């Protein structure tokens, strides 16, 4: 599905140059569940941002679905991202002013989906993640686990082929975290490709492949037994 060769990402300020990613090469096949691990500051989130077309590499090649995306215009990247990728964040990043239903529907508003179809899909995905009973509540009225379920629902409602999860359980207690991981596994079993950044070895075990990073480089990749 995606293929990176020699990708680097350098942040430059007036005085300092930081090499967040250094010559990364990574392939992810359709349907894989990949966990990315490493200490803070190793470049995990930067890698995820580049994979998710939210950031551009300073050098190297990145093929997404066979299309070279480095150098593409922002509008084209937005289009690719919209059609193919869903995001789940550690801090949920829900819109406080919108209800649960509206937060989830937001993802479809950018897809020109007719209103009736939108409503149907939103109801379906709320049922799937078990948050339908809170459909009219605002994020501030939900627990952490419930908010993350809304975030998962939002990531799914547009039926993305690739789901990127940046420490999805980081702000959750054990039981909620487990629940989120079970949801992700189910999605993967249903065919979604998932790349997840995590600190937790236990949660990394849900993945089929673990990529370890240090100082912007991939140290090792290991497959887990099925």
């Amino acid at each position, binding site marked *: 599905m995606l293929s990176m060769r020699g990708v680097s990402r350098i942040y430059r300020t007036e005085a300092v140059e930081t090499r967040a990613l250094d010559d990364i090469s990574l392939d992810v096949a359709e349907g894989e569940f990949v966990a990315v691990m490493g200490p803070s500051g190793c470049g995990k989130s930067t890698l995820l941002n580049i994979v998710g077309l939210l950031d551009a590499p300073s050098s190297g090649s990145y093929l997404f679905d066979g299309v070279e995306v480095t150098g593409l215009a*922002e509008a084209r990247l*937005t289009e690719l991202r*919209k059609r193919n990728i869903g995001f789940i964040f550690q*801090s949920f990043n829900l819109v*406080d002013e*919108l209800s649960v239903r509206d937060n989830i*529907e937001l*993802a479809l508003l*950018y897809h020109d989906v007719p209103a009736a179809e939108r409503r149907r899909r939103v109801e379906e995905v709320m049922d799937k993640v078990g948050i339908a009973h809170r459909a009219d509540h605002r994020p501030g009225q939900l627990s952490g686990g419930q908010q993350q379920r809304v975030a998962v629902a939002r990531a799914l409602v*547009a039926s993305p082929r690739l789901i990127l999860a940046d420490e999805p359980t980081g702000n959750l207690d054990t039981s909620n975290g487990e629940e989120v991981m079970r949801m992700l596994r189910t999605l993967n079993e249903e065919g979604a490709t998932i790349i997840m950044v995590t600190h937790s070895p236990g949660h990394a075990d849900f993945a089929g492949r673990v990529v370890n990073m240090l100082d912007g480089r991939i140290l090792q990749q290991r497959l887990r037994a099925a």
Partner: protein
Amino acid sequence: MVGMWRNYLTVGTRALAKSRTYAFITIIGLAIGMAAFLMIMLFVRHELSYDEWLDDRGDIYQVQTWYSTKGLGEGAFLQMTSYPALQALAKDFPQVEKQVFLVPSTPVLIGEGEPQLLRDFHYVDANLLDVLPLPLVAGDRRALDTVGNALITQSEARRHFGTEDVVGRTMTQISKGRTYDFRIAGVLKDLPSNTHLRISGVARLDFPSFFNNEDHFFRCWSCQEGWAYAKLRPGTDPAVIEAALPDWERRNIPEEQAGEARFNAGDEQDWHLVPVREVHLGKAQGGAMAAGNDRGTVATFGIVAVLILAMAVINFVNLATAHAGQRAREVALRKVLGGSRKQLIVQFLGEAILLTLGACIVALAMVELLLPTLAGFLAADLHLRYFGPGGIALPALLLVLVVGIGGGLYPAFVMARFRPAAVLKANKSGPATPGSERLRSLLVVGQFAVSIGLIICTAVIYGQTLYARTADPGFKRDQILQVDGLNRYQLMFAGNEIVRRVRQVPGVEAVGRTTIGLGSEGYSDGSVVVPGKPGLVDVGMYSVDEGLLDAMGLRLLAGRWVDADDPMDDMTLGYPASEEAQRALARRGANVVINERAAQRMGFPTPEAAIGKQVRGSIVEARFGLVPLTIVGVVADSRLRSMRLPIDALMLRKTEMGHRHLIVRYSGDPEKVRDGVERVWEQMTREVPFSAEFSEDILSELYRADDARARIFALFSLLAIIVACLGLFGLAAFTAERRTREIGIRKVLGARTPDIFRMLTWQFSRPVILANLLAWPVAWWVMQDWLGGFDSRIALGPAPFLAAGLIAFLVAILTIGAHAVRVARANPIHALRYE
């Protein structure tokens, strides 16, 4: 699409509700700016709309007389002209289709009740409606074809007859001592307020018989006796006529000889055809039927309106960009979900327009409340109409779009620029856009520069207005009762008796008579020949009596005042002035008193040097020659007219009749004195209504426009400061919030509350101090120019500038200070805990 807009609306309104202070400041600031803009634009539109309602206005012209600077020291530009000028125009220019001359009159209406003065009534020599197509509500448009017919307005009909149904009735008037029975043949619709015309009624007269004793009316080119209008044939280019006027003057204006003095009215005057739509704001404001205005004032108000609106928009931009960070997470998320930059810009522009719409509704409410007051200040008939002709709904909507897009575009671009990667990790709010702090500071500088500029202008305008009222006018201006109408035919020979009786009214200290009174608008000019001085010297020639020196409180600088017992002081010619009397005067000569300015103009180095000197003046008709005049006294210059006009050079001659004003100096209860003088008046005549004003009221009226202007500027300065402070408050609040962590750390490290207070207030005081550097030169230049329009003016010293700067600084400190104190005193633990 609908769903997307519903989403935008939901998020936008809820985000506003969450930040109530920001919402309030933004909406109120915008509302004030828009309200000020709308009100001023209503006024500007009103001023520019004068006489738009006249049909055929493109072909109607007023004939004006403009004096060059040769004559009276300053040019005089008059809306009035002489009768021969209009006749010669019509004769020589076939492009003139129709013309009409209006002679102003304040005839006395005789009816069932008390005699009443008919103000703004005119006598015409042709059918007025052929030239000025005023609308009729009843009667015949051809009525004024017939001598003896009259038209009056609806309100005049109601006032004098109690009904508008007056066609066919007779209106008996007394004018120049003669009684006229006019047949009312039509009722004019009351004129709208946006017209330079002041007409309560017109009557058609046969001018040769009306002016049979005043031959000069038909011959004198320098006697601006009324208003002349010409309707040109459609398609005529007035520039062709204008270009031909200099030759026309040479052809038509006769040379006049008086002794060795040669006069030609065309030497000092030029005639101009001015489109009727341009009269109100035109160059010529002298001799106007109604007080006009000048383009400079209207333009100034327009600029002030735009400035205040700009300030409100600046506030909006400043606060929106400062708050942009609060929406950064949402923006990043929308980008992650597939929103394009264009969609985000549209979203935030839409929010800006909606916010502006809300502000506009509040603004319209403010306009409804404040417009009557503003209209009163400006003496303008301003109304707020939403639909129909002159309706404000569409312009308001346009304003919403312009302000919403103008103010919302930059913040929308700023917000659409947020990069998701930088924001979404760890739930950060957006980083400050590079350069945005600098831009915000610059905008604050701009706002306060405008406010400081307006405060300076207000201070200077008030200062000049106060100066105009309190500066020594050269005579004792207080406690004078000025009575008009002494020159009416009914009282022509009763002047001495009136003076004698009024002197006996309790409280009266002195009584005098004059043809130039307080606030006089008319001019009576003549020329003198001064031995040793080439050419003619122009002076104003006015009649006085022996009592005027004390009554007016004039100051004698040299020589003596006119003496009742000295026959050489008397220049009475009788009415009408007979040839014999004029010839006799020209032979024997007479004594005169002049003022300082006249003495200077005649070339005398001191007032004393003028005493006993003889000059020769155009007192009688030119054919009788110049009259030898001996100067027996010099009085101090007196400012009888507005401070905008130069002090007249005066030559005062004593006569027994023909004075227009009775000047009564009094002490004690003014109303009792007025009643006493009125009783005397009514003993002398029942045909001329008593018309009197106190000098304080005349002065108020004289400077009413300037007073109003000062108050308007004060109002708009206040609004500007409020808008600037609202913005400053919002910014200060936001900045203090952003710096909570920094302040917490500083306090932990040992900073005291005053240190934090100083740090926060200095951040916003700097732009205010800089604003002075911007405002002072501009305000100085504008005020120098405005003060140049006054003959006597205050000096533009540093006081208003320093005061304005100090006021702005203090207001800024007060605005930020309360907030700064609260933040500075907060416990640092709370600030650092959230980290």
